[in-house]
């Protein structure tokens, strides 16, 4: 970090009027536009100019939260664009309300939830998790989320159900990236039933004390913190319990590179990116990547007896 000369520090009255201006701008242009131009913010409590707030300031390992600015402006979301820094701008007009999530397949009581239903029925809580992208960078994010398990208990999977299949919205009008036929839309992801019932498997509807912005997967997304980021599917419209292992978006795109499990594992190399180390966004150096992204205690049991190299 560079030291800021005192000449560059904004006088208080200018700062305060800027705050007023920003507040008005918030009313006028909405939170999304504001987030795109808000000054660099760190995890703050009480909220900063961007309204971002979090109860905790670190994860359970003591790692600091990634700034709200970075979390909302550096996004892999190919439905909008492959350019990570352009997602925030391109997604600002995304309409995520009303929104329905259809939960069905091998369940006793299939249900379609309005997002408001979901919010009313399942208490969301702050859950701070690490997100490790397969490209070798990572973040620490304070989600507002509830366990996927709660939702599954509500629809009651039948005895035949072995996997959960998730599907993102398909709407090329809203998702310009879906006009690109190079990829097999819509985005699909999957978990084993045991993975889906794990404590760490979350459905998030917010982060930093606010509802999810489009670039982060509004209005509802999966969070599977011990797996590479692409498993945490965004803007979910469909959740099905199935008997067969689903083929995920990335498995279809490059089966030799992306497997079904995609557990974070420093010992299983990927042909493009080092998986032994990673860069935490906001830091300069590299840090070691942890087995299961540091959640081995909670999830290693799920893979007992499974060859993790063959089942990447």
């Amino acid at each position, binding site marked *: 970090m560079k030291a800021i000369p005192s000449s560059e520090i904004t006088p208080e009255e200018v700062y305060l009027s800027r705050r007023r201006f920003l507040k008005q701008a918030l009313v006028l242009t909405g939170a999304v536009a504001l987030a795109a131009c808000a000054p*660099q913010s760190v995890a703050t409590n009480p909220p900063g100019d961007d309204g971002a707030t979090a109860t905790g300031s670190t994860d359970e390992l003591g790692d600091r939260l990634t700034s709200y*600015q*970075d979390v909302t*402006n*550096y996004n892999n979301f190919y439905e909008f664009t*492959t350019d*990570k*820094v352009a997602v925030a701008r391109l997604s600002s007009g995304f309409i995520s309300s009303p929104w329905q999530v259809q939960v069905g397949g091998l369940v006793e009581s299939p249900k379609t939830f309005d997002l408001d239903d979901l919010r009313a029925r399942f208490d969301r809580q702050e859950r701070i998790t690490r997100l490790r992208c397969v*490209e070798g*960078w990572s973040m620490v994010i304070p989600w507002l989320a509830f366990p996927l398990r709660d939702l599954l208990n509500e629809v009651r999977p039948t005895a035949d159900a072995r996997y959960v299949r998730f599907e993102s919205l398909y709407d090329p009008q809203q998702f310009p990236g879906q006009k690109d036929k*190079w*990829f097999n839309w819509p985005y699909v992801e999957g978990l084993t039933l045991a993975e889906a019932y794990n404590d760490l498997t979350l459905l998030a509807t917010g982060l930093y004390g606010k509802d999810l912005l489009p670039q982060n997967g509004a209005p509802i997304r999966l969070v599977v913190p011990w797996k590479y980021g692409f498993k945490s599917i965004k803007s979910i419209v469909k959740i099905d319990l199935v008997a067969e292992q689903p083929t995920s978006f*990335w498995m279809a*795109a*490059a089966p030799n*590179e992306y497997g079904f499990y995609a557990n974070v594992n420093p010992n299983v*190399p990927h*042909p*493009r990116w*080092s998986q*032994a*180390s990673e*860069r935490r*966004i*906001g830091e*300069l*150096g*590299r840090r070691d990547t942890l087995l299961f992204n540091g959640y081995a205690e909670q999830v290693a049991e799920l893979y007992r007896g499974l060859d993790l190299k063959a089942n990447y």
Partner: protein
Amino acid sequence: MPKRLLTILLHSLSLLPLLLLIINGLGGRLTANPIQAITQRTGQAAVLWLLFSLSCSPLQWLSGWHFAGQARRPLGLYAFFYAALHFLTFAVLDYGLNLSLIGAALLEKRFILVGLLALLLLLALALTSNRAAMRYLGRHWKRLHRLSYAAAALAVLHYLWAVKSDIRQPLLYGSILLILLTLRLPPIRRALIHLRQRS
């Protein structure tokens, strides 16, 4: 356009990627992952300037434009310059000169190995891109500098293997390279020169 102006234009355009990198860097506009952004931008510039440099000779055969021939060397040197920046970003900024991590990455990732090979070829070419070396090497100089074709091919392969699934851009660069190399086949080259002399 007078040659002097063309030369200034060539150098300004060639320094533009570096200038933009510095301006964006100072303005904090290199994304939340600036090291990755620097790596990608310098890499892109290296491949592009290699292709520019390799376009010079065919352009000269076809148009008789002398400046095209003179631009070949500086463009190639700029390609090496960006490739060196690209490598330094990887080794110093990204891996903090951690030799065990770098060594492991080299052994583990074929695309890094291929990239390093391309860089070493470009280094040899850059070191011999002066009159003294040309005099010393004589007719061998030309043979040596045909390695630029191999360097370009390796650089495109490096890019192809480095991108995530969507390989259209490296394929585009590869196709352009293929055309530029095909134009160098003696019968085609002769035809190009003939074409110009007749018109």
